[in-house]
């Protein structure tokens, strides 16, 4: 192999290593945050306003790759205590979406570090999406509202495809708002039963 061929390979190897390290660090931070008792995070946030508290917990949850950690149970308990489920759901969803925005940034940075076949697959998906642009926003609202899966995969994938930030985040935020309001109402009517399951 010529020296001209080795240099780009090394450069690509370094890029893949740094992307793998970034993803590994993201997952490690997620596991660390998910392992903390929610009460310690609440102490760390220190807010006395329940809606600010839920916004902060939602944002921490959005930073991590695990769905809803650590805010689900806190959201339901606050709704069961008599606070507005709608306001709790909206403030939590806004926090989650702000946290998920970091994944958009990560996605846009790691695209060029992907193996060639994955990069080709991403481009292929982008071409398919470009053929049906009107289907994407309703699909994102639906995903945010009903999917128990993390938003991170969707946000990162769309970021890699080059889909616009606002077109990704706004529909997901709308869906997530509905999801969190529903979760708050679930807490209002069934918190004791849910805690008993555990």
């Amino acid at each position, binding site marked *: 192999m010529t020296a001209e061929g080795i240099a780009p390979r090394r450069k690509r190897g370094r890029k893949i290593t740094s992307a793998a390290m970034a993803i590994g660090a993201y997952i490690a931070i997620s596991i660390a945050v998910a392992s903390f008792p929610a009460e310690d995070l609440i102490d760390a946030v220190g807010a006395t306003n*329940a809606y600010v508290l839920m916004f902060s917990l939602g944002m921490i949850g959005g930073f991590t790759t695990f769905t809803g950690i650590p805010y689900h149970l806190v959201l339901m308990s606050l709704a069961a205590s008599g606070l507005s489920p709608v306001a709790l759901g909206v403030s939590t969803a806004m926090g989650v979406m702000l946290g998920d925005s970091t994944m958009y940034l990560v996605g846009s940075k790691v695209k060029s570090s992907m193996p060639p076949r994955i990069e080709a697959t991403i481009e292929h998906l982008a071409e398919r999406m470009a053929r049906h642009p009107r289907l994407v926003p309703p699909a994102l609202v639906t995903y945010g509202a009903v999917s128990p899966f993390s938003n991170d995969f969707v946000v990162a994938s769309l970021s890699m495809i080059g889909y616009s930030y606002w077109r990704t985040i706004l529909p997901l935020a709308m869906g997530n708002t509905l999801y969190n309001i529903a979760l708050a109402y679930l807490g209002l009517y069934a918190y004791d039963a849910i805690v008993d399951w555990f």
Partner: protein
Amino acid sequence: MSPKAKPYSLGRTIAVGLAIAASFAILSLFFLYLQARGNLQRLAGEVVAVSQVGVSVQNARGDITAVTVPLDAELHGMASFRELEPGQHVMIRGRILDDGTFEVDRMRTLTEGPVR
């Protein structure tokens, strides 16, 4: 110039994506289970009465729980639980005792009241 790489099929891409998302969702449930399994429980609501040994807290459905505050309880937003007044909103972490009272481990005041 290297030949352009062939993309994975759409079905395979969706299957792998769903598998990754599902495995992360299962991991999330595991952590949620760990959080909920702790030996402490959470109670939040409106203070309706304050006594020498504790407070009574009412939830959204009107259920009232007698809460005892031991000396070593961690209090946030107040120096003593006796400072609490009816109508204030609190969030408590603690355990339910055999006699049905709720013993405080940590208690904090919240600035919002319940929705009327």
